């Protein structure tokens, strides 16, 4: 089932209209996004799926305010952000968005608590409050006992939990995860998905997961399929697969 484009609705935390992104490589023009409309309501949990080269990473970069669209309009939380400059976008990222990456992107040789504190330094949150919040976030993702561990002392799943705690540090409205389970084994991947679902359900955070893994997409109520820079289909998942990480079905 395809969702109809709706007019301005204050419920949309993400509202992108006719977004295009064109890269020029020598004489070639590559249209990574070719007029995409995307609306996401506050508190949604969804996947963006597509093969590599489909434009899903570009879409994520634009939705995450890491890049600006060549044309089109993008309102984030009601604020037009498509025409903002570098510094303003950095401010938006700091306050509104949290990022989780496939390769975790933790700082080497740095304890977990410092990793989680980092975004708060850039947001101007002072010492004690920062430490307290970082501790809370690590407890939220189940790493209360490993605050002083460096990435080398943590498993892949634990590292991704640190990264998720970091993405939550500045209390963002939206969490963007780029292949968050791509570097993890199946069991750990399921645990991380369960964490996203819990954050979405209990904390009301809008979670957008970019993936090419069907098993991941099956677990979200909405899936946007992208191909050749266009939305191929935008489906509501009637039968959300809910896997209990404590009772994983054998493959």
């Amino acid at each position, binding site marked *: 089932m395809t969702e109809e484009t709706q007019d301005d609705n204050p419920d949309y935390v993400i509202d992108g209209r006719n977004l295009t992104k064109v890269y020029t490589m020598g004489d070639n023009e590559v249209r990574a996004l070719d007029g995409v409309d995307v609306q996401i309501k506050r508190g949604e949990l969804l996947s963006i799926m597509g093969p590599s080269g489909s434009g899903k990473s570009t879409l994520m970069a634009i939705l995450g305010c890491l*890049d600006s669209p060549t044309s089109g309009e993008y309102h984030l939380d009601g604020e037009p952000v498509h025409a903002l400059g570098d*510094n303003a976008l*950095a401010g938006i990222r700091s306050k509104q968005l949290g990022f989780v990456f496939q*390769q975790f*992107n933790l700082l080497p040789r740095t304890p977990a608590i410092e990793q989680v504190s980092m975004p708060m*330094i850039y947001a101007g949150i002072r010492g004690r409050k920062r430490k307290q919040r970082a501790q809370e976030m690590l407890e939220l993702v189940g790493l209360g006992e490993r605050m002083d561990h460096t990435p080398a002392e943590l498993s892949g799943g634990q590292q991704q939990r640190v990264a998720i705690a970091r993405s939550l540090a500045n209390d963002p409205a939206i969490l963007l995860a780029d292949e968050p389970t791509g570097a993890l084994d199946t069991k750990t991947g399921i645990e991380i998905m369960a964490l996203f679902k819990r954050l979405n359900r209990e904390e009301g955070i809008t979670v957008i997961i970019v993936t090419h893994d069907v098993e991941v997409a099956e677990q979200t109520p909405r899936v946007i399929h992208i191909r050749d820079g266009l939305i191929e289909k935008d489906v509501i998942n009637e039968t959300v697969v809910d896997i209990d990480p404590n009772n994983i079905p054998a493959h």
Partner: protein
Amino acid sequence: MNLFENIRVAIRALLSNKLRALLTMLGIIIGSGAVVALMSFGNGATAAITDQIEGIGSNLITLLPGRFEGGGPDAAANADPLLFDDYTAVKENVPLARRTAPSIEMFQTIVYSKETVNAAVIASTPEYLDIRNFEIDLGRGLSASDNSTGARVAVIGPGLATELFGGLNPVGREIKINGVFFEVVGVTVEKGGGFGGSDDENVFIPIETGYRRLFGSTMVFNGKRTVSNVLISPLDADDVDQTMVEVERLMRRRRGLKLSDDLDFTLFSQNAFLDAFSAITATLTAFLGVIAGISLLVGGIGVMNIMLVSVTERTREIGLRKAVGARRATILTQFLIETMMLSLIGGAIGVAFGWGVSALVRRFDLLDAQVTMGSVILAFSVVALVGIVFGIYPAFRASRLSPIEALRYE
């Protein structure tokens, strides 16, 4: 994000790779250490030379026979010698030159018991020791009556005393100078060093005794007594130039030289000597400073090199920092502060290191090395400048990275 937070982030980044930070700092450490140490050596050398020249006697003017300008020793040898009467004329006719002494310097064989040494015998009037800043350690100096009576008495330097008498008290003992017995009446205080021969190896005797007993016809010219040189020491340093002018005028008249004639005697002041040496040592110090400065520059290029590598290596980190909200200016400041910290910490270690080397050199009496505040300030200013100049480019590169491309960097 305030400066304090930025410095903390920079320290954390440096601490997360201690070996690299240390290796990067090495160039700066050596450079700033070299600036401080080499300049302290230069200052030490200057001080040592100044001390020695001043030790010869402050405000000292020397009158010598012959023309020393370009002529070399031959010119002096062929010139008319200075007369004892020249000395008396200077003393009586130039009021500024009251403190004056004639001197005859000659190497003679000195014998005591079985010890035989060659030493400079300086025959002069009693004022000589005072003018040359010699002080008496044991016994007494030479008196006016020693001179007028032609007494066979001598004051000897401490170095010579040790050579001749070992640990014995020399006062009251008799030595033979060129076969003539002299009684040692005093020993001078050790001066150390000395310029063109030690000041501690002399034998001082009354000039009258010298004429009568030692020098014979060698110090007589056309029936008149001659001297090797005349020392003049005005009481006030400001009078040195004026005294020289007046002595020169007097000597021209005595020798019948017209204004157009070249001088056949030489007057030089210790101050002129001092100025010449100061100029040389100042050049030496500056030269050492420049060499050290070049090594600091090389150290700075090393820092830039590592910081550029570091920016490339930490591309993903920079991307991440930008993704979570760091602005361009923040990244620029962070990397600039990292470079500054590397430079300043390296500079501090280097200054301490240079100071230590300088102290060690003093400790082992190699040179009276003196660390000056100027050299420390110079080293730190250059280090800070190096930090900024060589830090800006890598920091600028880092700040310009696009977050998505940086995050995708493998």
